[in-house]
């Protein structure tokens, strides 16, 4: 195993004074923490710790699933919640593992960085005494120029070369350690990018109803659900947006094939301008990106009360997740039946309709599931309620759902159910009417700002490039010694002789510093290049194969 042989040994300074036990303990713990073994254990722990996050529902991914889990396992869920199982990737245990790992990482790369910078500036080491001990070794007639010529040959092949008298040392493949360090450093930068994003980033989701009534301006209050990093200031970038047109196309199977949202954007300080965006091509504004996440219908429901006043509800109906866009929603009229003359309101005459909207209703009942996402046979199934909607109680309720508590305690009563086609109306028992006027569209937006993404991108490039350098480059050394004429006989090379009549020989040796199965071949090529047949002719290749076959691969 040579892969780690050039790792600096732990600096074993000779203890001049008596070692302080606390310091010794600290130093030992630090050495433990920054060892490869510890890194391995932590990596393994990290992999294991990520599993619960994929098995249990996560708030960040799907909060409804967490709620369902709570109802399914009312005993277990709170216990799991206490250990952060529903936010596994932000939990104490997960963070502890990766923070330890990154501490270990930094502790590991800092000394290596220092050593590598030193190695980059240092000349390759002196030629060892006994070259024949190296894995690759060959003796050949010296080329015309001696050591200088050999050095030149190596330099041309981009080796780093130093000539010391009759000896040449050369090294290549520094990029391996460089790549490795870039890779590990990039990992730290990834973490910094993630941290930046979570401190200074924010995002919010919002429904945007088409038309001028639906205009949305980017403030904190405008978001139904928003998540702001702890370092986000009070003002979000200012812009307003109106949905002008939404185009969705589908295959006969109901699978979507095309989305496009046309909007008018009014960025602070500029003139309103048209813009378009879609799935996969978000709208990139100054300081925020707008993503298209979903879409649905807004049934327009007009209610005419006892006094002849009409009001129209245009609240989005939320899709239920099926391919046919079956949607549910609520049309609430808390201000219905207010006597226009006296201004007196009867809180028990409020009206609401909970509804199911089927863009393409089946031909036969039951009318519970839409068959296709476009409006080919639109049908609105309404249940009417009258009584106290409970909106004045100050308990915030969802605008998309009826407050069922009011039904249960009898303050709100169901007064009938009816299916309406577009344009149809329904007269209730008290003579008031409700009409299904038509539909509008809405889209679901995610508005986001993440200042860390650029850093993530840059570090990702570093990650991949560094990894390639680290895994594909091999570090290796070549040593050459020009032997003075006639010395070969004494050094015990029977074949050395004096092939060119008393001229000198060179001894060439190679040392792969990391695992390098192809080193023998490379060495053979180098030898033939030094010998002078640049093209690596037959002779060179032949001896190369021999050398390769006989040589041990890798150093001791």
């Amino acid at each position: 195993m040579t892969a780690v042989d050039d790792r600096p040994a732990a600096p074993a300074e000779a203890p001049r004074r008596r070692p302080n036990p606390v310091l010794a303990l600290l130093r030992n713990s630090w050495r433990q923490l920054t060892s490869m073994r510890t890194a391995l254990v932590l990596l393994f722990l990290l992999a294991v710790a990520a599993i619960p996050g994929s098995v249990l529902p996560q708030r960040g991914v799907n909060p409804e699933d967490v709620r369902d889990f709570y109802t399914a396992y009312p005993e277990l869920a709170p216990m799991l919640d206490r250990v952060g199982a529903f936010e596994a990737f932000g939990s104490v245990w997960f963070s502890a593992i990766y923070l330890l790992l990154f501490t270990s990482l930094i502790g590991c790369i800092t000394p290596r960085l220092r050593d590598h910078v030193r190695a980059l500036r240092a000349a390759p080491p002196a030629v060892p005494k006994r070259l024949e001990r190296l894995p690759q070794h060959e003796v050949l007639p010296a080329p015309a120029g001696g050591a200088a010529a050999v050095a030149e040959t190596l330099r041309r092949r981009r080796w780093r070369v130093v000539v010391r008298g009759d000896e040449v040392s050369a090294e290549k493949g520094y990029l391996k350690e460089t790549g490795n360090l870039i890779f590990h450093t990039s990992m730290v930068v990834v973490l910094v990018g993630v941290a930046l994003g979570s401190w200074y980033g924010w995002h919010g989701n919002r429904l945007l109803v088409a038309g001028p009534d639906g205009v949305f301006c980017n403030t904190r209050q405008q978001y139904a659900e928003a998540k702001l990093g702890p370092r986000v200031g009070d003002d979000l970038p200012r812009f307003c947006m109106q949905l002008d047109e939404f185009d969705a196309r589908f295959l006969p199977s109901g699978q979507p094939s095309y989305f496009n949202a046309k909007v008018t954007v009014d960025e602070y300080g500029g003139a309103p301008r048209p813009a378009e965006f879609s799935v996969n091509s978000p709208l990139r504004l100054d300081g925020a990106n707008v993503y298209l996440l979903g879409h649905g219908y807004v049934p327009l429901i007009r209610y005419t009360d006892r006094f002849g006043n009409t009001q129209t509800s245009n609240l989005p109906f939320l899709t239920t997740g099926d391919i046919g866009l079956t949607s549910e929603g609520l049309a609430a009229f808390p201000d219905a039946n207010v006597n226009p003359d006296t201004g007196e309101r009867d809180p028990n005459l409020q009206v609401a309709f909970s509804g199911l909207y089927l863009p393409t209703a089946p031909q036969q009942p039951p009318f519970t599931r839409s068959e296709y996402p476009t409006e080919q046979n639109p049908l609105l199934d309404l249940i009417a309620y009258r009584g106290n909607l409970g909106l004045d109680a100050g308990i915030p309720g969802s605008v998309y759902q009826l407050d069922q508590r009011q039904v249960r305690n009898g303050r709100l009563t169901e007064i009938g159910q009816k299916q309406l086609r577009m344009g149809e109306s329904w007269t209730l028992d008290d003579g008031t009417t409700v009409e299904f006027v038509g539909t509008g569209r809405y889209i679901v937006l995610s508005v986001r700002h993440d200042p860390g993404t650029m850093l993530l991108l840059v570090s990702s490039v570093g990650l991949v490039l560094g990894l390639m350098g680290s895994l594909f480059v091999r570090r290796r050394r070549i040593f050459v010694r020009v032997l003075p004429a006639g010395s070969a006989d004494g050094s015990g090379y029977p074949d050395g002789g004096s092939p060119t009549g008393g001229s000198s020989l060179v001894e060439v040796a190679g040392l792969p510093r990391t695992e390098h199965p192809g080193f023998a071949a490379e060495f053979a090529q180098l030898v033939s290049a030094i010998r002078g047949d640049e093209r690596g002719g037959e002779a060179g290749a032949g001896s190369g194969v021999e050398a390769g076959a006989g040589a041990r691969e890798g150093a001791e």
Partner: protein
Amino acid sequence: MSALSDQVVSIATMVYLLAMISHAVEYALGNARAKVVAAPARELVGAAVGGGATGVTGSVGGAGSAAVTAAQTGAERTARRAELAGRIAVVMTALGAALHLVGLVTRGLAADRMPWGNMYEFVLTVSFIGAAAWLVVLVKMPSLRRLGLFLNLVMALLLATAELVLYTPIVPLVPALNSYWFIVHVSTIVFASGLFLLGVVPAMAYLMRAGYEQGKRSFPYTLAKRLPAAAGLERLTFVLHAFSFPVFTFAVIAGAIWAEAAWGRPWGWDPKETWAFISWVVYAGYLHARATPSVKRNVTAWLAILGFLTVLMNLFGVNIFFEGLHSYGGL
């Protein structure tokens, strides 16, 4: 075109199965020969060592030599048969891979897009990469041929699962998948997964061979009798993983870039993403462990296998068990 693709894939599955059977025959014959030779070899050590059998047998005696010659010709015949079975197996594997490719191309033509829009197509492509890479390895290292038994077993299993469990009719991509980064992401994921799949073969072979070399003679280790030396298998495992890990890293990053455009965040710990992370960490652990002198090579080989299990979990398990944004699984 779509029906043609389905048929060709079925045939390819059968061909892989036949290749596997041929490999099994090769094994069986190889072991039979080993038994026949083993008995007389104890008395006639020379026969095995010296090339000239006649000279050696002459010195031992008539009766023995006759038995040996008979055994040897019988053994040679079996050896030749084993060799033939092995060659047939390789040809079958190549034929299977060719049909496999035809199945993929026709599927892509029928759908008018790259054939990786759902899990069926995904598994089809991953396994093809594995088979093609295997053939490349085989050209470079013919001595690994016997590993084909495992490879073809895995291929037949994957294709059969794809056809029986995952099959989905052709549909175009949903808009979310219609992106360049998606193509880059999926093609590289497929490529890396195929190589990881291939990398498991020498890893398992290494474990068996290493056990065999340590003198273990119980069931799985005996299979390794004729495998190349453990050290070479181990190095091959490393080379394959060292090559596919950067590809996989790039693929995950491409996925993050695409997810940023499609969903607004590069990383959201969706189950698919989580398992990709797990695989990445496990493979990083493998490379790390291999670079750590104090970790035994057996452990690293197991890490490679564990890594592939997590890849499989992502391919199958996540689509089947969990619900996430990567809902194109088509199940």
